[in-house]
């Protein structure tokens, strides 16, 4: 096999997965959180990352987003290793929703959503009309159009989170990485946000990966799950095969029962002794 050939030996028949990792290792303060992660996600798949506090969910998402160097192995997006992506091009391919952080300055909500349009015309000084339309549509999609002119510092936690999700939508990337998107949202907005993400996967073939704590919230939404055991071990695959009582109990450090209820499964934490 010539060098030229070997560079493409792993090109799959139907193109590259949206994102994949090879021998990925994540370490924090000398502790190995994730070891030898061989994982891939394809367009249209909706993944949830499950694990206890400190199991490495945020570290994994930040590494996949390219905000942090892997401690071993590599991450590829659309077949190209992360360090080889020019930042602006990568920004049009993947979006990242960080966990909420306080706002230092009084931007309007619409400004923070418009900011997500930056990768599409980094060279020009002002946004175009189409950017304003995209930003407004994104705010409408999360039911936050009425908040557009508000100073972000005056928004409640849940309102701010919805505006942040609107920014993510406005970036319109094929790969969306979300760190606890349901945080601070009320029940209705949790459900509608999940439905929105599910629709994006099904109708627009987006790839979604989100860290979640509420297993019942992602039922019927997530197609796949990635379980982080916290000691380097992991389990990945379709929901039916991975979100079992045995694996979830091991992953979350507390027994979980799967109870059938009106044709769906409800995850119930076993009562404390």
């Amino acid at each position, binding site marked *: 096999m010539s060098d030229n050939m070997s560079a493409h030996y792993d090109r799959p028949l139907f193109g590259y997965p949206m994102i994949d990792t090879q021998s990925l290792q994540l370490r924090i303060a000398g502790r190995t959180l994730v070891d030898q992660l061989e994982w891939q996600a394809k367009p249209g798949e909706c993944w949830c990352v499950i694990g206890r506090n400190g199991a490495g969910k*945020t*570290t994994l998402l*930040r590494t996949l*987003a*390219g*905000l*942090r*160097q892997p401690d071993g192995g590599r991450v590829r997006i*659309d077949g*190209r290793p992360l360090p080889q992506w020019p*930042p*602006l*091009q*990568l*920004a*049009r*391919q*993947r*979006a*990242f929703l*960080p966990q909420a*952080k306080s*706002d*230092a*300055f*009084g*931007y*309007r909500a619409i*400004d*923070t959503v418009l*900011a*997500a349009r*930056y*990768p*599409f*015309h*980094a*060279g*020009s*000084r*002002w*946004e*175009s*009309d*189409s*950017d*304003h339309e995209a930003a407004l549509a994104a705010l409408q999609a999360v039911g936050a159009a009425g908040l557009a002119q508000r100073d972000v510092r*005056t928004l409640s936690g849940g309102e701010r989170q919805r505006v942040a999700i609107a*920014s993510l939508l406005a*970036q319109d990337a094929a790969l969306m990485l979300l760190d606890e998107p349901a945080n601070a949202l009320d029940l209705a907005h949790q459900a509608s946000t999940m439905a929105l993400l599910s629709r994006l996967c099904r109708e627009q073939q987006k790839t979604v990966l989100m860290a979640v704590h509420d297993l019942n919230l992602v039922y019927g939404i997530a197609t796949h799950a990635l379980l982080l055991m916290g000691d380097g071990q992991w389990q990945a695959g379709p929901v039916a095969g991975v979100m079992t009582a045995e694996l979830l109990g091991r992953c979350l450090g507390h027994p979980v029962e799967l109870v059938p209820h009106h044709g769906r499964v409800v995850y119930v934490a076993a009562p404390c002794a």
Partner: protein
Amino acid sequence: MDTPDKSVKMDDGTGKRHGIGRGRAALIIGALLAASLASLLLAGVAGSVGVPLAELASGLVDILRGEPVSLPAVLLELRLARALAAFATGAALALAGVMMQTLLRNPLADPYVLGVSSGASVGALAAMLVAGAAWMVDAGAFAGAAAISLLLYLLARRDLRGGQAEGRAPLLLLTGVILAAGCSALVTLMLSLAPDTSLRGMVFWLMGDLSGAQAAWLPWLVLLTSLAIAMREARPINLLALHDDAAATLGVRVGALRKGLFVCATLLTASAVTSAGSIGFVGLIVPHGCRFAFGADHRVLLPAATLAGGIFLLLADILARTLLAPQQLPVGAVTALIGVPVFLFQLHQLHRK
């Protein structure tokens, strides 16, 4: 991989530009430019000896011809030289303040928070102790500011990279505050050792004083270069002010931008402090006031704060030299006396909102 590129370019080419932001920016900047010119003319006519408005034009023409011989022309030239120095100093401080606040993501930061001005004070006072020629004081101030900036950069380089460490301690801010404290101790030491004859000059320098300021091209060069760079990067700066991680995932080279902001802000501070001493409050309240009045968007904020800073210090200097004329007050005391109530009022308004 190239397809998104192309579609974006098409979108960019055909999409109509949004006019609202641009028109509003032009209006604000235009009004501030007009106010700048007006305050420069006011600086020319105001003083212990007035220049009648009628003679203003002929005086200006004389200066432009390069032969100011009439009394109004000589007065005008003297006053305009000082006014231009005051304007450049105030503009540099306000611009540096906006940059520092964004760099540290802290609306309470000012150009002096990282100790650059304290370093300049040590240098300037040391020069006054040793000899005291005006150019040596300037050189000492600049050397002190440069030394502290360099030290700060070396010690807190990790913090300037950005996008890497998570949950990091604010290394840059803490290092700067500690270095500033060290410099203040040195300043106190030198004040206590200084002979009485030079003490007054030292205190005036520390308060910030424009009486010795001369028209020079170097501060203007630093100011205009920094402003041009900052204006070009105004949108990435907005993203950085919103959220480090978000800026990085939106394609901003966060490390390079933070380093650029640091270098520009310290250079501006060093040049301002060198020409006029540590004038307080301009770098804190002008950015604040402009954010309050014009919003947080740096595409408007950067030029607006620069112009407003120039106007503010120029007006303060006019007050400093006319209030108790012929006695001159240190302009730093005037800015603080105006700044404190304005800042408190604004803070109160913000809380009521």
